């Protein structure tokens, strides 16, 4: 995880008590998370603290991969959890898995943060970024998890061209814009846009065909 010269310089206040580490097995337990979210919708603060303990590491990982600055990722995670608490009653309408819903909030916050006017990841950051990114897209041994959805996505990603697969993976995991992708992959902007558009179309066709 790179942070670079521009990483957080703000001095951290002395740490106090914080919630105990979650048990790793519980992190992936969508049912437990869904139950906690239902209790949060009833304004149960205790459930909210447990929800944070179970999900914050995963969501912070998402934020830090996109933002690549710890201070920004902390701000985004904080805003996201305030948002989650305030909008948790709306969750049931989405019919998504609870982690998917929370991850979408964090991703959107992080992307909004990156695209603020007057805020650019500077060239130094960009160089660090390029070093930190994998040169290859995921290979045929891509493992995304053991669920049926994960197997379907992995299989359908394999059916894309390497360029399509790589641009989609980079864009999703690191929040790269079309322009950043073009720069990183040393390709014209229009080419990158086409890879993404066609790749997403093929992905949908493949995944809908399997379900």
């Amino acid at each position, binding site marked *: 995880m790179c942070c670079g010269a521009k990483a957080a310089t703000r001095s*951290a206040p002395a740490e*106090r008590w914080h919630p105990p580490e979650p048990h790793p097995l519980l992190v992936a337990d969508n049912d437990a998370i869904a139950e906690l979210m239902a209790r949060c919708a009833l304004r149960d603060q205790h459930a909210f*603290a447990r929800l944070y303990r179970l999900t*914050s590491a995963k969501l912070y990982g998402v934020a830090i991969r996109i933002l690549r600055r710890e201070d920004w990722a902390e701000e985004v995670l904080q805003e996201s959890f*305030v948002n989650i608490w305030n909008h948790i009653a709306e969750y049931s309408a989405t019919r998504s898995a609870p982690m998917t819903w929370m991850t*979408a909030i964090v991703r959107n916050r992080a992307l909004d943060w990156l695209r603020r006017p007057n805020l650019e990841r500077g060239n130094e950051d960009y160089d660090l970024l390029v070093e930190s990114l994998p040169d290859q897209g995921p290979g045929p041994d891509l493992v995304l998890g053991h669920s049926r959805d994960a197997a379907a996505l992995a299989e359908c990603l394999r059916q894309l061209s390497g360029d399509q697969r790589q641009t989609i993976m980079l*864009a999703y995991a690191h929040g790269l814009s079309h322009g950043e992708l073009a720069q990183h992959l040393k390709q014209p902007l229009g080419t990158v846009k086409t890879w993404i558009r066609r790749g997403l179309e093929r992905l*949908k066709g493949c995944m809908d065909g399997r379900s």
Partner: protein
Amino acid sequence: MKYRNQQLREALASEYALGTLQGRARRRFERSLKDDPQLRALVNRWQDRLAPLDAVGQPVHPPARVWRRVQEQLQTGRRRRGLWSNLPFWRTVGLASVAGALALAVSLATLSPARHGAETMVVVMSDAEANPAMTVSWPMQPRGQPRLRVRVMGHPEMASGTAWELWLLPGGEHKPVSLGLIGTEPMQELTVPRSLVPMMDGAYGLAMSVEPAGGSPTGQPTGPVLYKGQCIPL
């Protein structure tokens, strides 16, 4: 703006979920999402499709200050009233605990060595599932320093490095007032300053929060509330 073309709607939803829809196009799309449930459904579907990619990255534990700031923002945030004066917060004390509260309150009141004519305040505090977990009672208008009788039910465990702090909730917009730290023993007594008497006899309820060892460093609850309940004069 309405996106009518189905192919365009699908393409925008997919690039929104992927993160590559940006700038003005992204903001315009988000405005459309607000009153277009079908477009929201397209986005949700794409988020579901791409969600397994989240498994690729490693979890990273955030610093403890993030959780503290989340709580501070929720308690002091300008856009919403504090949780402590938030009515829905109290609705979690469900019907189950009301029945339990009455039964317990009656038995406690008959057990209390209250002076003739004096009332006893009883608080049945419930956990998140609205199960009674603790009772606190005290004589109203006491002559000396008020002594709180604390009875902890079951055999709860306190995490090491933490403390349980009891809070008086005066009601309205008033902030919680600390009554001190309690333990997990079944029967306890807590002596509180006489200056708190007027506030205690008119209090709305009590809450018990998990705090760092030694108690809240801010004078206000900072950790999760385990138990809470309303005051009932008997």
